[in-house]
């Protein structure tokens, strides 16, 4: 026979306990004692009743703000394990509530917290139903007030739609499996735009099915947006929290996922008017532009005439100036010509003078008696010719 090390034994017992599903997810009730909060924020305490006691821990991240009081009776949710360091049975809590609130309320709150932490209620994953849904699924009782209300409102409000009813009991023992089956049927409908899960008020506030985790997960996983209209007056159900849109009644649920056909008519008329006036404005704008251009042309025409007459006027001035200048030049030329004529040597000769030049050597005018000797031959030019002469 071989001896087992203590650690092997404790580890074995721990694994046996943790393998048992019944010890994994359970509620216990008892009185708090030896409560303390560690430096790290974990809360250690024991829960006891008349006959037994179990060590418990509520770790820092679970309900971080919760404080317990010794002597208080509580419901605790969690699982059973072994704390190996002490060889001690331990209950690891993730949720604790005073017994006074009742187990059902505590269970609901634990589920709500858990799904919330998991992100099932996140605003970021809420889907918006399409503006003009064509096919609207409805999960509700086929004989209840809810389906009558939904059909009536839809007929008035958005008759373009097709209503697809997936019948289900909404209360009683069979409600949960019924609702799950109806949701699954509806999820298979082609072209579905939105689904309404509804329940018509009624005397009893039996909402248990809508606080069921399976229904919550089915709504979360539903392929198109889900609108709840559960006709209840108390706090929102888990189904409401997980739905994409929540309405207080079945009729309101229809209103939350359909347009009002009368408003659509009015909007179309408004758009038509707006288009007409916008088009008219563009036509008017172009007409104004044409008119403006015409005006500018007209405004420019007289200026052209003035310019033409100015040009003509200037031309006349120029012509006159030129003529005047010509006349002046001509008379100056004539005067000069007269003066030139007066200086013409031939005019002198005509008056009886003669030009005498020596013939020999260089031909040059004789202007002094010293220029000639006896026997020199000279040319004598007069007005109408020349002749020879000899000096004596």
């Amino acid at each position, binding site marked *: 026979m071989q001896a087992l090390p203590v650690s092997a034994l404790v580890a074995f017992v721990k694994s046996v306990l943790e393998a048992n599903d019944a010890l994994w997810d359970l509620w216990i009730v008892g009185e708090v004692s030896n409560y303390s909060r560690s430096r790290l924020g974990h809360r250690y305490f024991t829960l006891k009743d008349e006959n037994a006691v179990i060590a418990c821990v509520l770790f820092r991240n679970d309900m971080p703000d919760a404080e317990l009081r010794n002597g208080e009776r509580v419901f605790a949710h969690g699982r059973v394990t072994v704390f190996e360091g002490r060889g001690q049975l331990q209950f690891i809590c993730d949720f604790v509530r005073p017994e006074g609130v009742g187990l059902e309320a505590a269970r609901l709150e634990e589920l709500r917290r858990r799904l919330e932490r998991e992100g099932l209620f996140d605003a970021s994953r809420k889907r918006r139903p399409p503006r003009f849904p064509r096919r609207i699924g409805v999960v509700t009782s086929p004989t209840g007030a809810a389906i009558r209300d939904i059909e009536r409102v839809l*007929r008035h409000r*958005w008759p373009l739609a097709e209503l697809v009813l997936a019948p289900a009991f909404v209360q009683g023992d069979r409600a949960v499996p019924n609702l799950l089956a109806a949701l699954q*049927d509806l999820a298979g409908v082609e072209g579905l735009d939105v689904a309404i899960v509804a329940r018509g008020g009624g005397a009893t506030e039996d909402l248990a099915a809508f606080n069921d985790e399976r229904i919550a997960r089915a709504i979360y996983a539903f392929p198109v947006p889900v609108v709840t209209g559960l006709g209840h007056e108390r706090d929102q159900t888990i189904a409401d929290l997980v739905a994409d849109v929540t309405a207080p009644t079945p009729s309101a649920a229809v209103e939350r996922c359909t347009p009002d056909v009368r408003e659509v008519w009015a909007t179309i008329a408004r758009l038509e008017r707006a*288009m007409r006036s*916008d*088009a008219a404005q563009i*036509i008017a704008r172009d007409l104004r532009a044409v008119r403006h251009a015409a005006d500018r042309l007209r405004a420019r025409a007289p200026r052209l005439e003035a310019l033409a007459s100015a040009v003509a006027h200037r031309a006349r001035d120029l012509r006159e100036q030129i003529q005047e200048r010509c006349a002046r030049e001509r008379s100056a030329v004539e005067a000069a010509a007269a003066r030139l004529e007066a200086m013409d040597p031939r005019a002198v000769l005509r008056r009886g003078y003669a030009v005498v030049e020596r013939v020999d050597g260089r031909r040059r005018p004789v202007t002094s008696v010293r220029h000639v000797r006896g026997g020199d031959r000279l040319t004598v030019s007069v007005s109408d010719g020349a002749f020879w002469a000899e000096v004596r």
Partner: protein
Amino acid sequence: MNAGETSFEELYARLEQTAAKLEQGNLTLEEALRLYEEGVALVAQLRAILSKAELRVRQLHDRLAGDETVLREAEFDYEADGP
């Protein structure tokens, strides 16, 4: 709205776009007139769809009666225990 026909939603979206383009201005006269004609045609189509509309109601197979309901319930209990 049968398959193949343009859906109300699509026609309506086109009307909105057309109206928005016209409102924006910045258009030649030809563009503006073309858009306006398009818009008027869309309005007529939308009105025709709205006037003809009548709610259709269809009920899926009733699981509340018969053996199948029980069978399905068993299936769901099984699935619900899963992950």
